[in-house]
């Protein structure tokens, strides 16, 4: 009996050791970033996880220095996010409503096409998107970026919303129709209010995309005044005259400011994400 207790104790200790090491590996890089953003001086060589004389200078610099574009980038990301969110929600819910509630010629092939298009990585067409936008004159404009975002999210989100609409009982629509409600009224008064959770997911997803995505803005935007946050921060540490060595602490401050709100939202919503993922996985 004692032997068994000993083995069990060893096992638990082993697990704790592994988990603690893993937690350290997760936390240390993040802590290092926060520490760097508070370090004095701009060099990476001097940045420490626990700076001796913490300072908020770099945050101040981001917001007040005339050389800093941080607020402009933030505003750009916000504009792109807001418009993408608006159009994405409007278009995907309408499309999903049709696919979920109506049986029409071409419905099945439409759904298959959506599924197929969803598999193509959007990156794959980057050559074409770049050349096309150049030809149409939308290169280096926020409008071009918004259009590409809205179009790209349609297949995935339509499937998502359609799946959710399918779980709302059709008897509700039928009852409303008996009472004389038309196509649009059923949509606005019954489906949309009941589908709020999935609408929040779609809206948040498209609102946050421009804050997290790097590739598309990098391809489409050229002028530093048009950058979104991600491209801007990359520029910060990769431009010819400002390498890691002399801009790192400012970069760290900018990163913290963007990562903090997004992580908060994520951790707040993660229960729903995970519930959705596992129910999707186990129920098929």
């Amino acid at each position, binding site marked *: 009996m004692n032997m068994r207790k000993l083995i069990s104790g060893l096992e638990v200790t082993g697990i704790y050791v592994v988990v603690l090491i893993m937690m350290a590996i997760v936390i240390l890089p993040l802590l290092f970033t926060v520490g760097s953003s508070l370090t004095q001086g701009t060099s990476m060589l001097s940045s420490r996880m626990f700076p001796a004389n913490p300072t908020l200078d770099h945050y101040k610099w981001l917001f007040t220095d005339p050389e800093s574009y941080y607020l402009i980038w933030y505003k750009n990301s916000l504009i792109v996010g807001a418009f993408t969110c608006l159009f994405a929600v409007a278009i995907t819910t309408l499309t999903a409503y049709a696919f979920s509630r109506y049986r029409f010629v071409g419905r099945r092939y439409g759904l298959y096409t959506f599924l197929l298009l969803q598999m193509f990585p959007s990156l794959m067409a*980057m050559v074409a998107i770049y050349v096309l936008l150049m030809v149409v004159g939308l290169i280096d404009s926020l409008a071009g970026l918004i259009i590409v975002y809205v179009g*790209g999210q349609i297949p995935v989100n339509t499937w998502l919303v359609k799946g959710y609409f399918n779980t709302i009982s059709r008897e509700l629509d039928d009852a409303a129709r008996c009472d004389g409600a038309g*196509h649009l009224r059923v949509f606005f008064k019954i489906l949309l209010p009941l589908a709020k959770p999935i609408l929040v997911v779609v809206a948040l997803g498209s609102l946050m995309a421009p804050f997290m995505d790097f590739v598309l803005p990098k391809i489409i935007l050229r002028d530093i005044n048009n950058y979104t946050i991600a491209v801007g921060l990359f520029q910060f540490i990769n431009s010819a005259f400002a390498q890691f060595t002399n801009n790192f602490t400012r970069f760290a401050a900018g990163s913290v400011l963007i990562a903090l709100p997004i992580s908060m939202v994520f951790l707040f919503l993660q229960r729903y994400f995970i519930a959705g993922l596992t129910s999707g*996985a186990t129920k098929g």
Partner: protein
Amino acid sequence: MLVRNFSAHSPAVAAGLSIIPGLGQLYNRQWMKGAFFLLFTAACYFLFADFMNIGLWGIWTLGTLPGTDHSLWLLVKGIISVLLLLIFVVYYAINLVDAWKEARRLQSGALPESFRDRASSVWNKGFPYMLVLPGTLLLVFIVALPLIFMICLAFTDYSLYNSPPRKLLHWVGFANFRALLDMPMWKDTFFGVFSWTLIWSLLASTLQIGLALMLAVFVNDPRIRFKRLIRTVLILPWAVPSFVTIMIFSALFNNEFGAINRDVLQPLGLYVPWMTDVWSTRGALLIINTWLGYPFLFAIFTGVLQSISADLYEAATVDGGNRMQKFRFITMPHLMYALGPILVLIYAGNFNNFNLIYLFNQGGPPVLGQNAGGTDILISWVYKMTFTTQNYNMAAAVSIIIGLLTVLFSYYHLRKMAAFKEEGQRS
């Protein structure tokens, strides 16, 4: 209303008249509809005839006068013209079938519907199409058009030295694909990058899944406390935007200034050229990718583990099963079942993980005799060819290969997914 007999009404005549859209409908006494078809056809003709004429000529020749004809514009117009032509063919077919069907209905003795009835039936039947229209249009122009355009580019000679408006493009058939397989300059790079891409996606995915599995099982152990705290911390890498963490890691792994060489390895007397040696960079990328990607799987595995009913384990205990057996025959099957549908996501995601490769050190370090860096995967090589060397035609050709591989693999996998099957049967 006057009762009239339409028994002499001929469907063949109606369809024949509708060779000019609208006339057949007029013959069927559908005045409004006939007028609409006539007007719509005329409008289409006046609006699009010139455009389509140029477009179809353009996509065939790609222009004849260097400096005047812009091949790219002609190509775009050409693709749009082909799409319009397809839409018009569908419209034309609908018009013919409609005239024929309505004539049949009248012939069999039905009365022409009143305008009000028809308007409401058009509203009801057309409603779903109106809902789908905006999304479909966007999809066609923003997702499908670029894809078609890219496929076309792969069959042209569009590159830095041959670019409009100064020069004309030409159709070159499969020459670009042949160059990828034969021409020494392209061949070596292509096979080098391709094999690394495959190794990368296999290793990267396996490491992510392995670590996630181990941690999920460990943390789920009933003897472990502070589960919520541990899980929240372990999920953090998923919560922080990945472009930020990749750039941070890129700084941490920096050969001279990075904290890893400076603070961790130096005291041990070690030095690893993370940024300049091919295999060291690959190792660093695998480490970072595991760090970034395991939390997603960890969350899923944890959810599954929590949902496995305790009864199963109790029953196994009663039957004398030991811990290994319980793990093998109860836990693992559940986990693998949940992993199935998302496996393709993981592999495809790593196969096309542009962000990590590019943000870490732009696919570097450079390799002698190749025009791609040592860690470039296909997709980041495409980026280089587009924006650095401007070999647009080759970039498009490689993109097609990526797309075909991804779609074939995903399609094969998705066919097995329950949701997909069910949707197919229901509609």
